[in-house]
């Protein structure tokens, strides 16, 4: 059933990572992505990997969930890994026609696989431990400086919040409409690709109609409550930069600088 798909993968919890300010988490994730690609040798990669695992452990969410997030991009990981094996310099270990496996290629592949997996898992830390509303709130605050360039930051954030809010509603609606059309004999499980796409028309049209109706209703409801954009608007949950966030920031700075130091001390392998 469609309803069982979980979107917006927030898993409520009380861990230290959950309690961090959304802004801290977003900024640190971006920095993390930069630094995992700055790793030039095994020592720095090891530092980053151990750090990632520590953070994952601290979220107190089952490691299986993180592995599941990897499953979605498993194909990408394997494909880039395999491609990298054949691109690289160094001693030739095996050769057939134009294809060569080199030590450099193997190292490249190992780096790419570790980097992508860590990237995916640590990004999941953000989505698993931050509620969608906190996330959009955090983004709004972080993008605030852009208002100078007349970017409608609040409006963008509001649209994101509403979109996220309505995903489950629309999924449920889809489910209902599908059932109603199935009850009239619509066949959505068999046939070739063209027939299947055609079979979606009786579902998509009512879905669009109802999405527009909902959007209209919501706009009216918002106007009735005098919503007029972000100016002077207060929040129910005020984002709060606490000591914990400062701690997280400092420890990340330490870890990230150690990556740079190890890059300078040890020979680069990539």
């Amino acid at each position, binding site marked *: 059933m469609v309803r*069982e798909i979980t979107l917006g993968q927030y898993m409520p919890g009380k861990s230290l990572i959950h309690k961090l300010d959304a802004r801290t988490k977003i900024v640190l994730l971006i920095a993390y992505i930069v630094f995992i690609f700055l790793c030039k040798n095994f020592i720095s990669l090891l530092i980053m990997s151990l750090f990632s695992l520590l953070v994952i452990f601290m979220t107190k969410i089952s490691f299986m969930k993180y592995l599941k997030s990897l499953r979605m991009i498993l194909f990408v990981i394997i494909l880039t890994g395999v491609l990298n094996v054949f691109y690289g310099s160094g001693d030739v270990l095996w050769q057939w026609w134009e294809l060569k496996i080199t030590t450099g290629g193997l190292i490249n592949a190992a780096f790419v696989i570790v980097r992508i997996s860590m990237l995916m898992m640590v990004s999941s830390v953000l989505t698993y431990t931050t509620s969608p509303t906190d996330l959009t709130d955090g983004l709004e605050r972080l993008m605030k400086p852009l208002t100078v360039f007349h970017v409608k930051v609040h409006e963008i954030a509001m649209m994101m919040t509403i979109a996220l809010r309505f995903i489950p509603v629309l999924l449920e609606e889809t489910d*209902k409409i599908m059932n*109603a059309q199935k*009850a*009239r004999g619509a*066949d959505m499980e068999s046939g070739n690709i063209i027939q299947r796409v055609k079979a979606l028309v*009786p579902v998509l049209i*009512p879905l669009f*109609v109802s999405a527009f109706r909902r959007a209209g209703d919501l706009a009216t409801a918002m106007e009735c409550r005098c919503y007029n954009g972000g100016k002077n608007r207060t929040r129910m949950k005020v984002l709060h930069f606490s000591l914990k966030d400062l701690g997280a920031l400092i420890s990340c700075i330490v870890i990230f600088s150690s990556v740079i130091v190890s890059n300078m001390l040890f020979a680069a392998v990539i």
Partner: protein
Amino acid sequence: MSVIKAENIKLVYGAGTSFEKTALDDVSFEIEKGEFVGIIGHTGSGKSTLVQLLNGLLKPTEGKIYLNGKDIWENPKKIRNVRFKVGMVFQYPEYQLFEETVYKDIAFGPKNMGLEDDEIDEKVRQAAVFTGIREDQLDCSPFELSGGEKRRAAIAGVIAMDPEVLILDEPTAGLDPLGREALLSKIADYHKVRKNTVILVSHSMEDIARISDRILVMSKGKRIMLDTAQNVFSKGDELEKTGLRVPQITRIMMLLKEKGVNVDTSVLTVEKGFHEIMNILSQK
């Protein structure tokens, strides 16, 4: 032979996950051909789930459902045929309209059945007559109709499949009293003319009491009663335990009786109640 027979059905949603919920628990009943059965129950009592099982949109976790004596899940690939025989009108069916014209929308079901064009035409026009859709409205876009008309057009889309059993899930929800009245009498007419089995799900006692032969009372996923309207509403206390009430007019009669007025408490409709009270008054 009964047209629909449910045998010890159990349905568990999300089995094996933390959201596991038993929606139906050991429900059995039989419905005879041509009967008009009302299903009542509080919100979340499992009545909507139950009717979705009857036309194979949901599969019971345990138990069997028979249509004309045959297990509907005997051949899962043929489940579509069951859906043609057990027509189902969902809550707020107007949200399923999608075609360019009302005519095409009503014809969607018969077309899926693989009928010939002239046969489809006949069924569409008959269904339109039953639901009070005018000839000239058939060529309109369904989105041009009023709310009540949309609903009737959607119901026509199911009636056009000429199902042996017609299930309506809260068909009057959200309609004004006049619309309610009109729709219910259309359904009653349909039942009288076609002599098909009709199952009406509602939580309006008044609606159900007036047109049902028998009433199935559901509560918390269990069958509480299945009996004639008279018998069901005579057990007012038991009904109240499940969060349901007898029709208002019956309640008035019961209160009058308590006050010592000798009235018949099995009255279920306002008209009958009116006559009953007038009788008493004229005797004095």
